[in-house]
């Protein structure tokens, strides 16, 4: 079964990089440029297994998106992984307290993403560690 990911970042370049990395692991991906656009994708019924979420974005930032997803019980199974350059300890704590499962600090490597996915049990079996 295909694993689905929604890549949320206001940078097109970063969306391409993260999507490319996940597709290399066998994911089917979609992209959103900010939190509200991502919520629209979820509302239309495309509910992913994983959301990768930038913090600083226009319209709706990553933390607001996490709060919105966690407020809807129907989206509880969605795994939320922050992928952001916000690396202050306080910000990491805030994101995890709001309901994010994992936190990856930019810059990251494909290996770092793979390791996090393995920890979350979201690495397709055919991808070896």
């Amino acid at each position: 079964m295909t694993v689905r990911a929604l890549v949320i970042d206001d940078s097109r370049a970063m969306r391409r990089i993260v999507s490319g990395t996940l597709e290399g692991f066998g994911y089917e991906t979609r992209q959103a440029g900010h939190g509200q656009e991502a919520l629209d994708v979820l509302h239309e019924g495309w509910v992913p297994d994983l959301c990768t979420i930038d913090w600083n974005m226009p319209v709706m930032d990553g933390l607001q998106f996490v709060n919105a997803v966690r407020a809807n019980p129907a989206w509880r199974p969605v795994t939320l992984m922050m992928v952001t350059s916000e690396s202050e300890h306080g910000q990491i704590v805030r994101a995890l307290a709001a309901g994010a499962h994992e936190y990856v600090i930019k810059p990251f490597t494909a290996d770092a993403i793979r390791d996090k996915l393995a920890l979350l049990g979201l690495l397709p079996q055919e991808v070896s560690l």
Partner: protein
Amino acid sequence: MSDLSDAGLRRRAGDLPPATAELVDEATVCEITEQAWLALVGEDEVLVPLPAPLPAETLSSWVEIVGPWTGAVVLTCGRDTALDLTRALLGEHAPQEVEQEDVDDALGELANVVGGNVKAVLPGPSVLGLPEVGTTPPSGREADSVRVAVLWRGSPLTVRVQSVLAERENEVPL
């Protein structure tokens, strides 16, 4: 009536915030930039710490940081270098024809990643702004900045961490 200045509720004219160079040094900025390059631009993309003059036509990207230290992290390079950086950053995902929008986006993301990690070593808590791109970066206090000059594929680029609090020199009451 209490003396506000003695109660610590006023900042004395001489109580300037620490200089930027006291908070972050060139080596740290250089290391953060190198990490960003290796992860985003490419594993073999080495930055050589060698100052060289920037070309006449440059492009800058920057993010502002607002907090106990307020200022901006500014990345500047030549326009051709910015285009090459975009192609390198996008790699196999690069479109056939790279547009200015792609260049602005890629350069902005590099400033965002470098700025976010610089913010982490500065006193906090602070807020990171969204990246901006243009030919005229925000003016800062040249005297209160940390500047790193490197070569990437032989082309010069600079990263500047600059305070923008010139008006604070005259600030007394909070």
